[in-house]
């Protein structure tokens, strides 16, 4: 059968590192990139006799995430131990939540090419991250870095409502933007602070039973997730079409070969022996506590988008792109306010900025300039100090060597020539050197004017004011 005869069923378990200052059960810092084993203490290294103390901020952040995804918040929750051995897990159990998660029954809306769709959120629970194994390049074994051990995570489990890699991509982007908006996670995928376990299965169209699923763990780029899902769908179709059966297993996606590989043998089927952690008391939340968090939630992307449609008259498509990232959205609103030209700011974000982000695979958070600097760029065009073609070059410069657009223009000598005398000089020179075009224009070929203006821009290395050039050529050629 062809791939089209199958329905794809995908569910995601997304892990987001929470951006609390300290770890979930001790007061070590959570910041990324420190020298190995410098953010550790007796508690997060599981020294004998130590006890965990739950960081209240973690509960607050998880409740924020739950409320932002329309979950029901449990007022009676608890921590459980998930037992397994691995060197990155110092206690030999991860403190997580098993049968009483903090948040349940939520949803996220996505705008797929087939229309608007609701993706169910099964649950959101809190847990601790594990450390990291660094494989020693000299082959003397593995070195354990416990800086990340005890960094707080929320795990967001979706219903198996996703039907394509496109939907997965949209869902993840939406989820990421929500978490950024409510400021509970910085969602830096390259640093692993947002990662997804992807469960994929296929079934014949019309079937009611789910097929056997495979799981790809710890995926941390949109591109690999899409590629991996596409590969895995093809693989499963292939297996079934050849009379085989998909095996339930954990797979590893290999970015280089573009294939998935089996990770564990079935012998290792884990029994985590979950049980309530006796070191921690139950998590009891009052109505008032939950309501206060609800009240403190900022405007979410969906609501911002609606506002952009009416307030700024953006197109639906543009509003979607801008609100997809809190950073882009803030950049848009702040820059628009300063330069009073939202249309121009929108255009910059949608076209040039988005293009550069795509080309460099940069996350909007990493844009090296701020809203003030973008607003200045727009105002410099509006005032006629630079042309829009120069502005594009300034923008590239702002990405590469971030500084104020005025400084860039000064240094590069890119200020637009708007002096009538200077313009006239150039115009006269171009007319003199291009008699054919002059003749063409006079014979009624309007296009020739564009060529002449282009020559003048070339002559001034793009600095001449194009409106003035246009006008002056027209006058001279009358």
């Amino acid at each position, binding site marked *: 059968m062809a791939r089209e005869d199958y329905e794809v069923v995908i569910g995601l378990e997304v892990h987001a590192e929470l951006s609390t200052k300290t770890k979930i059960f001790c007061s070590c810092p959570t910041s990324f990139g420190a020298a190995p084993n410098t953010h550790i203490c007796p508690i997060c290294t599981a020294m004998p006799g130590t006890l965990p103390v739950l960081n209240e901020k973690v509960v607050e952040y998880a409740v924020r995430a739950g409320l932002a995804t329309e979950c029901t918040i449990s007022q009676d929750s608890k921590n459980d131990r998930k037992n397994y051995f691995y060197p990155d897990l110092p*206690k030999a159990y991860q403190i997580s939540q098993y049968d009483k998660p903090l948040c349940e029954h939520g949803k996220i809306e996505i705008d797929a090419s087939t229309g608007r769709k609701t993706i169910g959120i099964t649950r959101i629970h809190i847990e601790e991250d594990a450390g990291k194994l660094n494989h020693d390049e000299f082959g003397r074994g593995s070195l354990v870095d416990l800086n990340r051990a005890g960094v707080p995570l929320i795990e967001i489990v979706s219903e198996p409502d996703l039907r394509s890699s496109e939907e997965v991509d949209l869902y993840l982007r939406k989820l990421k933007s929500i978490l950024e908006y409510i400021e509970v996670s910085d969602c830096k995928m390259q640093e692993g602070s947002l990662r997804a376990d992807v469960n994929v299965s296929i079934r014949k169209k019309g079937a009611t039973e789910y097929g056997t699923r495979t799981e790809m763990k710890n995926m941390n780029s949109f591109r690999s997730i899409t590629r991996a899902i596409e590969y895995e769908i093809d693989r499963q179709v292939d297996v079934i079409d050849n009379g085989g059966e998909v095996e339930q297993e954990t797979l590893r996606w290999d970015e280089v070969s573009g294939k998935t590989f089996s990770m564990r043998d079935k012998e290792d089927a884990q029994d985590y022996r*979950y049980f309530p952690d006796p070191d921690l008391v139950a998590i009891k939340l009052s109505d008032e506590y939950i309501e206060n968090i609800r009240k403190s939630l900022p405007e979410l992307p969906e609501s911002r988008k609606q506002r952009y449609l009416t307030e700024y008259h953006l197109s639906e498509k543009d509003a979607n792109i801008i609100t997809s990232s809190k950073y882009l959205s803030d950049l848009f609103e702040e820059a628009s306010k300063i330069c009073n030209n939202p249309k121009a700011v929108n255009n910059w974000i949608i076209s040039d900025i988005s293009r550069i982000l795509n080309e460099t695979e940069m996350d909007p958070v990493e844009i090296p300039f701020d809203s003030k600097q973008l607003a200045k760029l727009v105002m410099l065009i509006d005032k006629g100090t630079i042309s829009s073609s120069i502005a594009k070059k300034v923008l590239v410069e702002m990405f590469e060597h971030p500084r104020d657009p005025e400084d860039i223009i000064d240094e590069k000598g890119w200020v637009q020539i708007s002096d009538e005398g200077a313009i006239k000089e150039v115009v006269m020179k171009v007319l003199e050197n291009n008699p054919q075009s002059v003749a063409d224009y006079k014979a009624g070929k309007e296009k020739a004017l564009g060529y002449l203006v282009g020559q003048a821009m070339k002559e001034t290395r793009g600095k001449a004011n194009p409106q003035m050039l246009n006008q002056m050529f027209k006058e001279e050629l009358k």
Partner: protein
Amino acid sequence: MDITELTVHELQEKLKNKELTSSEITKAYVDRINEKEKDVQAFVTTLTDEALEQAKKIDEEIKTGEAKGDFAGIPIGIKDNICTKGVKTTCSSKMLENFVSPYDATVVEKINSEKMINLGKLNMDEFAMGGSTEYSYFKKTRNPWNLNKVPGGSSGGSAAAVASRMVPWALGSDTGGSIRQPSSFCGVVGLKPTYGLVSRYGLVAFASSLDQIGPITKDVYDSAMLLNIITGHDERDTTSSNQEKIDYTKCLKNDVKGLKIGVPKEFFGEGINEEVKEALEKAIETYKELGAEVEEFSLDIAKYSLATYYIIACAEASSNLGRFDGIRYGYRAKEFKDLKDLYRKSRSQGFGPEVKRRIILGTYVLSSGYYDAYYKKAQQVRTLVMNEFNKAFQKYDVLLTPTSPTVAFDIGSKSNNPLEMYLADICTVSVNIGGLPGISIPCGVDKENMPIGMQLIGNKFQEGTILNAAYTFEQKTKFRENHEPSFRKGEE
């Protein structure tokens, strides 16, 4: 005067009147250790030199007025599962043979801030699992009343050290009777506080929902004093309670008139030694003479306590002991071929048989397919046990039982029969299951001059009530004045 015969409250008096210095006291105990430790084998680590040096320093500080506390210069012994910075904390296990904790347990911080002097770390059953201290990796501690007998366990080193006067008092830990049972076997006073009264931070976990640190002392007054020092809310232990601190010595009224004592008859049934039973009956008579109202009643649920206890304790232990994996600290097998082999060999070689037995039991009861039948069921029974105790305490102020159905048994007589060893906990475990306070005090000796212990159980946070009941009994019966350990070797 033999200094080591004095109680801590007597020592305190003499320190205050300058009759004694900390150095003199410490020296007396160091001499005693040098004399008796070879027979009793109570210590894993002795700190005699360090203690003498510290005593000298504290004497100076007392002179200059820098050391002001009531307990400055008083020595103590600490069970070897309570973390002490810079001193080995072995849990009497090969796994932690050379382990030095990077931090002090909360109770140790409290002791240090009182400027008390640590004489050493005391032997125990490995990871506090056992009732005879025979499961120590290092040595078998002997009962000072008869060196052929066990001191009980798991805090056998603590109880034996107090009984043999090698320390004036000691800290133990109690998960299912590990303070009370050895105190009973060694004729000293042992108190297990209400769950949550004393911080567990720094106590190497055996069963987190049952473990409590408590005092083992020569008499009840000392027990109240040491309890005063170690209690208090600790923000590092979220299960520690927010109770307001009280002075337990003020609860010692030497008066039990009108005190309602319930005697659960199930604790006097099958398996109880006749001489123990007689001693307890005599104790009940004493209480009646003292004006208490004693009544027998049925605590039927108690018979399920032992099974419940072993399921919950082992389940928690199987998880708590996972961290001893040979990766970050502790024993690591010399040779291994891969990660799994490293785990398997380090844990196989590092843990003793009783610890392995309990890890396996605990792993089993938490396994999928068995969880509901064992662990979940045990938690439900636990709730029922608590309810029954609540009911009993609506009627009674104190419950009175034997601490153990027998006196101390011969070394080697039960160590190969785990089930029989588990039965020795039958009187004590329900107190841990209920999270209640319990105290063991001596109430007599058997024909062979082996001490018999009486357990008094109180309602949650009613340590004052049981301490007073114990104190009143002690004042009347004067056990310490009439009996003492013989250190005899017995007829082998």
